[in-house]
């Protein structure tokens, strides 16, 4: 079945430590890939996106993500986490890669940052 998997439900990191949030998808073609962040009680803010080209994409707030076709993965990384990064992170996929169609979301990874 087609799906978006975020295997880590909850991750806790120390402030200043590096971060990697995992995302795997199971769609046949190369989809459009996104990471969104949701702070408590807030909406979904786009962090970054991958459509084509360079497989390492840069986003806002110092985040980056790497598309690995062979692994069907699009993991989110940040070299040094700040306390304000505590939030829920969602990987999303546009499986038909058009931008006009609906997104499929993973279940999210909740990030806790400890001092």
């Amino acid at each position, binding site marked *: 079945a087609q799906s978006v998997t975020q295997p880590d439900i909850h991750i806790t990191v120390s402030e200043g430590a590096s971060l990697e949030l995992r995302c795997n998808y199971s769609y046949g073609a190369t989809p459009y890939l996104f990471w969104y962040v949701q702070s408590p009680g807030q909406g979904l803010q*786009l962090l970054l996106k991958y459509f084509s080209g360079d497989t390492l994409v840069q986003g806002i707030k110092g985040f980056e993500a790497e598309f690995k076709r062979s692994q069907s993965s699009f993991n989110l990384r940040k070299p040094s986490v700040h306390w304000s990064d505590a939030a829920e992170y969602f990987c999303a996929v546009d499986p038909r890669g058009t*931008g006009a169609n609906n997104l499929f979301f993973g279940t999210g990874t909740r990030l806790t940052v400890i001092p």
Partner: protein
Amino acid sequence: EPEVTQTPSHQVTQMGQEVILRCVPISNHLYFYWYRQILGQKVEFLVSFYNNEISEKSEIFDDQFSVERPDGSNFTLKIRSTKLEDSAMYFCASSDFGKGAGNTIYFGEGSWLTVV
């Protein structure tokens, strides 16, 4: 930066009542969407809308739901007779598809609906 705006931010309604959630998409976008997120669950697609008609809808979007673009700026989601299980955060979104290399869906801050 242009943004999708939604009203109300929070609404409490009694079961069986009709609810209308309102959205103002980003002004030059042509594709509009509603998603929902039940507390603690993933964000789910409800419906997409283009050229004044529904282009795609999910199984969740049954006859209780309808969407409308009543004027040039608003995009509404109506739930005809709310059920307890309709309690969720409803996100409106719009896409810059067709405007170049964008093709990104931008979300509003959500309308939290509580059905009692």
